[in-house]
Structures are given as C-alpha cells and as structure tokens.
C-alpha cells in the first residue's frame, strides 16, 4: 500500500527533525560548557522497511590531533610556570639591586660601617654598627636559604597532591572506559560519557604530557611521550611519600626525600625521564635541582665570608673562626646548609671593642687603633678566589661575588619568564583553535531554521496524504 508507506516515510522525517532539534538545543544549552564537544547527526536514507530517513549516529566532532597538541602545550605551560614562579622566589630571596633590603645592600652596609669605624675606632656606636651590619648579612643569608627550603617543601607537597589527583583521575578514566565500552556494544549514545572522559583527561593534562591512543569499542589507552603507560586496560598507580619539613641536607639521592614509583617500581624523575615535560616533572626539578643549586650558591657565599675574614686576627689561634663563623666554629668542611649555620662571632656579644682589639683580646686596647678594622675592610674588598665549587672560580671581591649571585638569579628568572610566556602563548593559541571548533550558536540557529522548514514540509506532506485518504473515504 504506497499511501501508507509514504506516510511512514513522512513520519520518519518528522521524527528525525525532532531528534535534530533536540541536538541543536543540547548544543546551544552547552555553548559555554568547557570540554563539551558539539554533536551532529549523521543521516541516511532507509534501506529496509520502505522509504524514509534514519538517524545513523550522533557524531562528536572532536579534532583529536588538536586536542592532543593542546594537552601537550598545557603540560608544557604548567611546567614553565612552576619553574618561573620558583626562580622569581629565588631572585626575590637574594633581592635585586634596586631595593635597600637586597643582599648587595647588606654587603654595602657592612663596607660602609667598616670604613666609618676605621675612621673613628674609639666609637662604640660605630663598632656596634659593624656588628649589626654583619648580623644583618648573616640573617639575610639565613632567611634566603629558609625561603629556598620552604620552596622545596612546597614543591614536595605539590608533588604529593598532583600524584593523588593523577591516581584518582586515572582510576575514573578506567571506569569511564569500561562504561563507554559497554554502552557502545549495546548501541547506546555514549557522547556524554565521552565528554566526561575528555574532561577527566584534561584535568590531569597539566600534570603530565599525555598521549591518547584509541582502543576497541571507544576505549582509550593513555601514555606519556616519555613512554610510561598510564592506562592500558587497568590504570597505573603512582606512589610518593611527602615530607612536610625539608632541610638543605635532605635529597632524593641520600634517601631523605621520596622518589616516584610507577606500579611499585621506582622511576627516574629528572630530564628525559618517563614523566618529563609537565607540572610534576617541574616540581621535581625545583625540589631536586633548581632549589639545591640556589642553596649551593648561598652556601658557597657563606663559606667565602667565613674564609675571607678568618686568619686576620693575631689574637686568635690560626684555625679559629674570624668575624663570621660556622655555628661559632671554623668552617666544618660540610658546605651544604652553611648559609643557615652562618653566625657572627659570639666573642663580639656585648664586647664590640673586640673588633678593634682582636677577637681573642681579654681587655680593650688603644682606643684609636684602626689596624684590625682596616684589615677587615681590606679583606672585604680584596679579590680572592672562592674555594667553593658552587661559585665562579675567578678572584672576586665580596661585593662582586654578591653581584654575580644576584645577576645569575635575575638572568635565570628572565629566561624562565620568556620560556613561560612562549609556552603560555602556544597553549592559548591552541586552546583558541579548539574553542573555534566548539558550539557556534549562529550555526545552530541556522540549522534550526532548516530543521523547522523540513518539519513543516513533512507535516504538509502528511496533511496532503490525509486529504487523499479522506477523498478515498468519501467515495
């Protein structure tokens, strides 16, 4: 009966129009939803059961290549941002030349105080000013190294929280994988689940660079470009033990700080490792490389201070510490953490005249004797080679050493800054491209017009068929 088959075809047109209107409304409703991928309908003519149209599938129009690039860029940006943030902290800890609270300003204050005291050695006020300036210098080094160790502790706790998030997300992605597989085998629409999975993967994309590989029935496997398998059927589990307090002598090498395990097996965390390229690797780099390097230069400077000012005083045994001490003793030979142990000689407590008369002097000597003060000033300005391997080996005065240190910190921060702005520009360009492929309400409105027309046309056909049938009935 061709009239009823025509009716069937018209009905299929009406149904498909309604389904398409549903898709449009869903797209428009989710125009501002992050991670939502636009749905479109795939239509085909009916092959069996007469004429008509059928909805073959609902398509998620995701650009997998762009998605993967954007995730890589996001990981790179997170890493660069973490590095730049730490280097800014390290630069701030030593201070830049234009602030009065910088390390170089402290050294200048000591220089001035020594000169003023040498001009008037009998003045207790000026001798006191020298001791104060020396104490301010040691305190600054102590505070700077405390800042750096705090940054390490922060990196350690961030690693712990990132590892936690990563493990949770991987478990959820594995669960979603299973549900998507079941859904697609049963022939259901899995778009919403796919969106959810993409959001989950995105949420950890800044921790690790992630490559997504399609597996059977809509499942995915996840890898890092370094070669670690994050999810292949079952999720991988990362292991990490945080340490709330980090001191300069604690490192991953000596076992005092935790490394990273993947499924119970220890993996490397440095450059070129499985996890290299994201925020997690950057936190490891801060904790295990950048911060210890910054600490090492502070410690080297502390050693230079101790050695520069020792052996000047004839009232002391030759191996006794001078103006600056390693916890009130001579340099112990252990450079790590020296900046925190650096202290002004306790012989000067309440007896600032010992600066003038010798640290080992039992009683005050001639009040106008500037010999030792001049010697101290000469030791500051003399170009001496550094014995610490962490400092440049050439001969430098104390002011130049500190200037080198601040310049190094500033240059490192600057290059990290430009790396970060490059990474950020790349990530946002890719994100913009990805968003450009998202829901365009104008386009949706346009398709809505077409849908409306189609629906009206189908309804009109139905009306005509109805008229024809009525005419038949009248006979």
């Amino acid at each position, binding site marked *: 009966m061709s009239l009823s088959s025509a009716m069937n075809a018209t009905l299929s047109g009406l149904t498909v129009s309604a389904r398409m209107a549903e898709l449009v409304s869903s797209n428009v409703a989710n125009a501002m939803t992050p991670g939502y991928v636009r749905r479109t309908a795939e239509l085909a003519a009916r092959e069996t059961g007469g004429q008509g149209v059928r909805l073959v599938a609902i398509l998620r129009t995701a650009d997998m290549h762009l998605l993967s690039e954007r995730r890589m860029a996001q990981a790179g940006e997170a890493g660069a941002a973490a590095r730049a943030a730490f280097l800014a902290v390290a630069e701030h800890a030593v201070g830049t030349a234009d602030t009065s609270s910088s390390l170089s*300003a402290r050294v200048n204050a000591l220089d001035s105080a020594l000169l003023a005291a040498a001009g008037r050695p009998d003045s207790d006020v000026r001798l006191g000013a020298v001791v104060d300036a020396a104490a301010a210098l040691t305190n600054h080094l102590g505070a700077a190294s405390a800042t750096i160790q705090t940054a390490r502790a922060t990196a350690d706790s961030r690693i712990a929280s990132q590892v936690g998030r990563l493990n949770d997300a991987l478990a959820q992605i594995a669960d979603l994988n299973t549900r998507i597989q079941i859904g697609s085998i049963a022939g259901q629409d899995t778009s919403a689940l796919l969106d959810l999975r993409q959001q989950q993967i995105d949420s950890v994309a800044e921790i690790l660079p992630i490559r997504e590989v399609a597996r059977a029935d809509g499942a995915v496997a996840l890898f890092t470009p370094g070669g670690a398998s994050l999810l292949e059927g079952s999720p991988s589990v990362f292991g990490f033990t945080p340490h709330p307090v980090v001191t300069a002598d604690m490192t991953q090498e000596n076992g005092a700080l935790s490394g990273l395990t993947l499924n119970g097996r220890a993996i490397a965390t440095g450059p070129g490792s499985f996890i290299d390229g994201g925020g997690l690797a950057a936190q490891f780099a801060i904790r295990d490389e950048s911060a210890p390097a910054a600490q090492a230069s502070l410690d080297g400077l502390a050693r230079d201070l101790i050695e520069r000012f020792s052996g000047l005083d004839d009232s002391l045994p030759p191996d006794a510490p001078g103006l600056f001490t390693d916890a009130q003793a001579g340099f112990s030979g252990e450079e790590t953490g020296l900046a925190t142990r650096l202290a002004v000689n306790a012989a000067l407590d309440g007896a600032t005249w010992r600066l003038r008369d010798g640290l080992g002097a039992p009683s005050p000597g*001639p009040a106008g004797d500037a010999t030792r003060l001049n010697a101290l000033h000469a030791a500051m300005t003399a170009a001496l080679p550094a014995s610490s391997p962490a400092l440049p080996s050439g001969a430098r005065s104390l002011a130049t050493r500190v*200037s080198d240190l601040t310049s190094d910190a500033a240059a490192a921060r600057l290059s990290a800054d430009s790396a970060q702005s490059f990474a950020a520009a790349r990530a946002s360009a890719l994100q913009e491209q990805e968003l450009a492929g998202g829901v365009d309400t104008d386009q949706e409105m346009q398709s809505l017009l077409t849908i409306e027309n189609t629906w009206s046309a189908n309804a009109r056909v139905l009306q005509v068929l109805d008229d024809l049938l009525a005419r038949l009935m009248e006979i």
Partner: protein
Amino acid sequence: MSLVSLGDMAQSFMLRRHMGQVKADLALHTQEMTTGLTTDIARRTDGDLGPLNAISASLARLETLASVTSEMQLWSGAMQSALEAIDNRAIELGPQLLSAASARQPATFAAVSGEGEAAFLAAVGYLNTSLDGRALFGGVATDHSPLPDSASLLNQVAEVAQGATSVADLRDRLDTWFGPGGGFETAAWRGGAALEPVTIAQGETARLTPTALSDGIRDTLKGLALAALAGRDLPGPGIEDKAAMLAAAGDTLIGSSGARAALSADLGITEQRIADAQTRNAAEMTALKFAESQIRAADPFEAASRVQEAETQLQLIYTLTARLSGLSLADYLG
C-alpha cells in the same frame, strides 16, 4: 568545519585574553609613569646587574667617606690651631728670652721665666686637648690625654733637673730626658703608637701624624721648660746661671722653629688632601647618581605614550565586546 563556523567561546576567550594582556600592560606603564623608575630592573639590564651593583656600592661608600672626611677635617683643623698656638707663643718668647738674658736684669728674669712657665703649661694644655672625646696628640690612645697635667709634668722636669751642678749639666740632663728613649717617652708619655692611615677616597688614605712626641714639640717643650726652671733657681740662683739658662731656652725655642713649621706644613698638606678628596668624592657621587638614574629611570615620555596606547587599545576591546555580543542570529529570527 572551522571554515564555516567559529565557536562562541573562541571569541569570548580571545577578547578576555587580550583584555587581560592590555590591562597588565596598563598597570605596568602606569607604575613606571608614576614612580619614574623601571619596574623590572633585571629585564632592563638583561640580567646583568653588575654595573648597577657596582654603582650602588660606590655610592654607599662615598656617603660614608663624606662623613669620615669631614670628621678628619675637624680633627686636623683642631690640631693645626693647637700647633699654631704653641708656635706663636714660642716665636714670641724666643727673642724675649735672649734679650732678657743679655740685659741681665733680675726683675726681667723673673718676668720672662714666669712667661716661660705659663707658656709651658699652656703648651701641655694644648697637647692634651680632646675634641668630641677624642685626644688629638696621643696617637692610637685616643681615650685619654697623652701627657700628665701640665703642672705635674713641669714638676717631673724639675725633679730631673734637681741637683744639676751647672747649666751645661742641666741641659745635658734635659736633652737626655726629652731625647729618644728618655724619661719624656718612658715616664711622662701615656699615648700610643702612631695612628693608622684612614681611607679618605677610593684607594687613597691620609694619616694625622703629629703627636706630643713629634720632634718640634719635644724641643719646644724643652725650651719652655728651661725658661720655667730658671725661675725655680735651677741650677742655681746666680745671675750668670739664670742668664745662661734663659739664653739656652731662647736658643732652643728659636732652633726648634724649623721643626715646628715642618710639622704644621705636613699637617697642612694632609688637610689639603682631605679637602681635595672631599671635592672629588662629591663630584664622583654626582656622576654616579646620574649613571644610576640612566640605568634605573623609565623614560617618562615613553611610559606616557605606552599608557595612552594601552588606553586606546582597551577602549577598542570594550567597543568590540559590546558590538560582537549584539551580533547574534537569534536576535534577528522573528
């Protein structure tokens, strides 16, 4: 696909990103404009802070040197006027003593001896001067006067002269006592070693050398002591002895004038060097401050035009945001 459609979020994301960037620029340049200083000194110098650090260090040092040199100037001025006062008294007294010696009038003897004693007491007083709690002529022992008080010093000299049989014997005794290694150094002198040089400019030092032990001072004190002792009837009360004593005193005072002049001249040269150093330090400071501001200052014209630029750009973004949000097909579908 992307040719026929552009996601709504892409547009708002792009506008948001540009707005953030322009606002950050605006804040940066506004700060530069108001402070006149560049906000990121490391970026300005490409991370090479060496020159700026060197300038700051030199400026801090020059500021200290300014106060050190003005103190030195104060002390050297006080020393110079003490030396001058001693010298004036000695120059005045020398010829008087000689003429009194040749006149042989006992009344005059008493008067010039008295003058001599007063001058001795005054000279010791000058040498014991301290300024702002700092003894000037005692070398490194700046916390107390270098000589005993003037009367007891004269008594010490009188004790040495006691029992001298002749004028020549007495002169010998005083020569030995005031000479190197004599009682003046070992018993009377309470000062210390010579002062250390003090830095007055980058790489330049000056030292205030005169002490109560300087040659001109010793001989002057010796001459004045001879005149004073004549008044105490040493070695004897005879006219001949007194005349010889006064003549010896006059000779010694006149003979030591060269050494006193040399002492003053040396100190004068040091004073001049200190004054020169002050001038040079001040000039250097001005030059360094200029150089510092060259490095640190932000060009106000550039900052102002950047602010203007950012303002225009921000206004454009606002206009675009308003226009684009009105452009929606949904608004036109009736």
